């Protein structure tokens, strides 16, 4: 029974992934039935085409390199030196989840717009003609970089954590300095993880939507992902043909990077010797405090500063660089919360996040149980288990925009007529976030040690009783935190939401973009503040639940 359910789910997932995207690609290549490069030619000959492509590559390429550097330094400091932040360090990758990415991007616009940005307001008091401007290509690269750092931090810190410290020690004992040790030992040992992280950054960079839609649009910089949505949303009639062509280009680039990343990852893990127990850290001496302070400042700057900016703008009657708390007003909150649209968006998103997250967790638990191999045998054979695993991870190779566009092509028309319904959103979120769901649920389940389940068999309990009484109850903290993570991801999703949500089913991401596009920053900031409050409560819950371990000696 479980086997049938798992196979149906896997089949459904692959259908939901391959069918829409297949339809989309076919539509781009064969608009009238026969192979026709006409659509491609038409798009390529547009005056905006080459500039869009160039800007996208410049922004994604540069920010990927920068993010890789920053993530490597942060990961090394935190994992291999005594300047690490310990508990706070493990919290680092979660920090960006506190705020929906679109709010972070808006925060940077509030901070660093020419003249009216808060930073420029401060700089005006200082001597010299200093000013910053985020509404430029370097500014956009800056925001991209900050959003991308966590994508690289997670795998690199993982690799560094597994690095055998005796290698570093041997190098240091033999008289090499810290710098030499880094370049001779630490760096080569994790070079594979870094290469793999770089391709991951490319995949994530091309898929980013919130930064370019907020910063890029105001700056007049056109990025591929935004252009695709724009062709669907703001052209009348929607230029589906051009959108599919652009999405196909995006698909090819991202898929290529994803495949390269997989090739690198699968090429053995020769450098990763598990250095169990030994927690020898490189002493940085006097520099320790400098680096630790630097890390903390980086974290504060990248999370607290934009949040502060958003909150201030939400309370200001008009966005002005002069911050005067006596002028603060609730008017934007009232306005935005009195709009039926935004209230319904909150309701729909929270509902989708809760229900969708629960469904995703349930699916992954089921698949995890089916994959498990015991002496009883396993529900899925080893080969089938690998195939199912691959299917669960596959959506990572497509960006949300491509998946959403595929859904529009495939399901909005007859016979499905799902356009603008909550169902199409739910399905799209599920497909899009299945890799994250699968990874976090897998981690949660694998935290239950094998001998705990085996002890249950040895106590004469059946497999079913073991799963019900031991495996699942012990995995529950991890599963709840997986649920919270999915809630945050679902609720903060922007790209697919913008394309799929309709007037009847507005969602948070859709409304945020809508208000932003209308140029009303106050209500947007107020709404973003409310959303941040909701998601950060969920993140807090996630951290608390994830930390709750039964005391074991």
């Amino acid at each position, binding site marked *: 029974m479980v086997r049938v359910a798992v196979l149906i789910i896997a089949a459904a997932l692959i259908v939901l992934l391959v069918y829409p995207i297949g339809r989309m690609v076919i539509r781009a290549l064969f608009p009238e039935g026969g192979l026709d490069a006409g659509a491609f030619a038409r798009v390529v000959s547009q005056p905006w085409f080459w500039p869009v492509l160039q800007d996208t590559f410049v922004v994604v390429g540069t920010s990927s390199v920068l993010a890789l550097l920053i993530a490597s330094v942060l990961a090394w400091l935190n994992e291999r030196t005594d300047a690490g932040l310990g508990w706070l360090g493990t919290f680092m990758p979660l920090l960006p989840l506190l705020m929906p990415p679109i709010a972070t991007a808006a925060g940077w616009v509030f901070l660093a717009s020419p003249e009216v940005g808060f930073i420029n307001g401060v700089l005006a008091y200082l001597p010299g003609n200093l000013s910053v401007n985020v509404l430029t290509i370097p500014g956009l690269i800056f925001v991209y970089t900050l959003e991308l750092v966590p994508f690289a931090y997670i795998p690199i810190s993982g690799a560094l954590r597994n690095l055998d410290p005796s290698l570093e020690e041997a190098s240091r004992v033999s008289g090499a300095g810290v710098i030499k040790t880094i370049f001779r030992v630490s760096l080569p040992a994790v070079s594979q993880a870094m290469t793999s992280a770089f391709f991951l950054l490319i995949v994530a960079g091309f898929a980013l939507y919130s930064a370019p839609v907020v910063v890029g649009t105001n700056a007049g910089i056109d990025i591929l992902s935004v252009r695709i949505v724009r062709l669907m949303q703001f052209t009348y009639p929607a230029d589906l043909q051009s959108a599919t062509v652009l999405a196909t280009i995006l698909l090819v680039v991202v898929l290529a990077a994803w495949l390269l990343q997989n090739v690198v990852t699968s090429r053995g893990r020769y450098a990763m010797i598990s250095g169990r127990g030994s927690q020898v850290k490189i002493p940085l001496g006097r520099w320790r405090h400098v680096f630790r302070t630097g890390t903390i400042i980086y974290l504060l700057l990248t999370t607290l500063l934009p949040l502060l900016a958003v909150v201030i703008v939400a309370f200001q009657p008009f966005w002005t660089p002069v911050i005067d708390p006596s002028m603060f007003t609730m008017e934007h909150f009232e306005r935005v919360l009195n709009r039926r649209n935004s209230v319904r968006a909150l309701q729909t998103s929270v509902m989708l996040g809760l229900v969708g997250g629960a469904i995703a967790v349930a699916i992954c638990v089921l698949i995890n149980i089916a994959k498990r191999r*015991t*002496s*009883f045998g396993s529900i899925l054979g080893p080969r089938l288990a690998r195939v199912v695993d691959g299917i669960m991870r596959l959506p990572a190779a497509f960006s949300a925009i491509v998946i959403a566009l595929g859904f529009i092509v495939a399901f909005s028309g007859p016979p499905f007529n799902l356009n603008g319904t909550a169902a199409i959103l739910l399905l799209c979120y599920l497909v899009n976030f299945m890799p994250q769901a699968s990874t976090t649920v897998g981690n949660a389940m694998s935290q239950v*040690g094998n*001998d*705990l389940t*085996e*002890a*249950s*068999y*040895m*106590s*004469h*309990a*059946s*497999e079913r*009783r073991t799963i019900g*009484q*031991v495996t699942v*109850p*012990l995995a529950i903290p991890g599963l709840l935190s997986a649920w919270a993570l999915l809630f945050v991801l679902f609720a903060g999703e922007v790209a697919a939401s913008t394309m799929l949500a309709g007037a009847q089913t507005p969602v948070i991401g859709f409304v945020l973009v809508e208000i932003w596009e209308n140029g009303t920053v106050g209500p947007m900031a107020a709404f973003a503040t409310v959303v941040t409050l909701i998601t950060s409560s969920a993140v807090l819950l996630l951290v608390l639940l994830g930390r709750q371990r*039964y*005391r*074991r*000696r």
Partner: protein
Amino acid sequence: MTVTSRAEGQAMAEPQEGAPHRVEIRGLSKSFRRRSGAGTIKPIDDITLSIQDGEFLVLLGPSGCGKTTLLRSIAGLERPDEGSISIDGTTVYDSGRGIFLPPNRRPISMIFQSYALWPHMTIFKNVAYPLRSRKSTRRLGHAEIAARVEQALAKVGLVGLGDQYPGQLSGGQQQRVALARALVSEAQVLLFDEPLSNVDAKVREELRAQLVEMQRELGFTAIYVTHDQAEAMELADRIAVLNSGRIEQLDPPRRVYQRPQSRYVAEFIGSANLVAGVVRSLDERAVVDTALGSFVIEDYTEHWTGDTPLGTGDSVTLMFRPEDCLVDPGPDSRSNMWDVELVRTSFTGVQQHLLVHSGDERLIVLTTNDAQYPEGAKLRLGVERHKLHLLPPVPAESGAA
């Protein structure tokens, strides 16, 4: 361990009719494919073994020799490739007939190295779990279950801790709870996988003694895995010494120590002095030529462990225990004697260890006399003629670690 539990403990120990052996293993084999690179590893290699009712059998061997795999195969947590296993006269595994009884339906309990208590359940619930899982006891009333759990906890000396969680107990206490959980379902066969290697030395001694006492009292059959030879000697009725998936010797502890079947066993159990030699002559006694000189072995057939009769000119390994060496014995003892030079001494209070050499041979000597010898001193060693053992010669590279 309380005395009150003695009465029903004896009732449990009543042997079952018509079950000569509790556990019978025939021709069991299991191999694993190595994860990285080619090749397979065979941690169980054609093992045949019968375990008597109420016997305490210890599986002993160095790390990676397949002890755990064998135990897990008996438990049903691992599926062997070939052979058969029967417990209490029931075939639980038979490759030929395609029988595999899943672990939860085998009449056994197991105690894990990691205790494997469920951290989300109280001690009471942990111990009650097997009762609530098993068909025969599932329908027991609340009071009956509580009574049995209390009994089991009393047996291991943990009365009144039922409401605690495992995380609140010490390692030794946790392992006692695990023992109570294994005892509560009254399984006749208990499997132990290095249960004491996670508790500290003092508690280990205590638990070991308690375990022996409890086994004598309750009469369960125990299969106990360890790589600690002292533990094996103390606990076992019989020790099975394993060497890469095979049983090298299966004998009571005393015999394993005094009559090691092979150089591997001799070196693994206690320490041994091993000297290569060639048989010069055989009659009542054997004379063996070695680099240390000629040795006379009294009653040599008793002391020869090879499968085939010994012949003149055969290569053998001469083995004697360090504590059987006499330092500067009287001139006309019936001992074999030779000269050595002292390399190092270490004094442990009761005994002193002497490391000596003679040519290329290095020997260990254990003596209770507390004479002080300077390093480099010339000593005369002796070994009595019936304290020498003759083992089959072993290619140098396969000596035990």
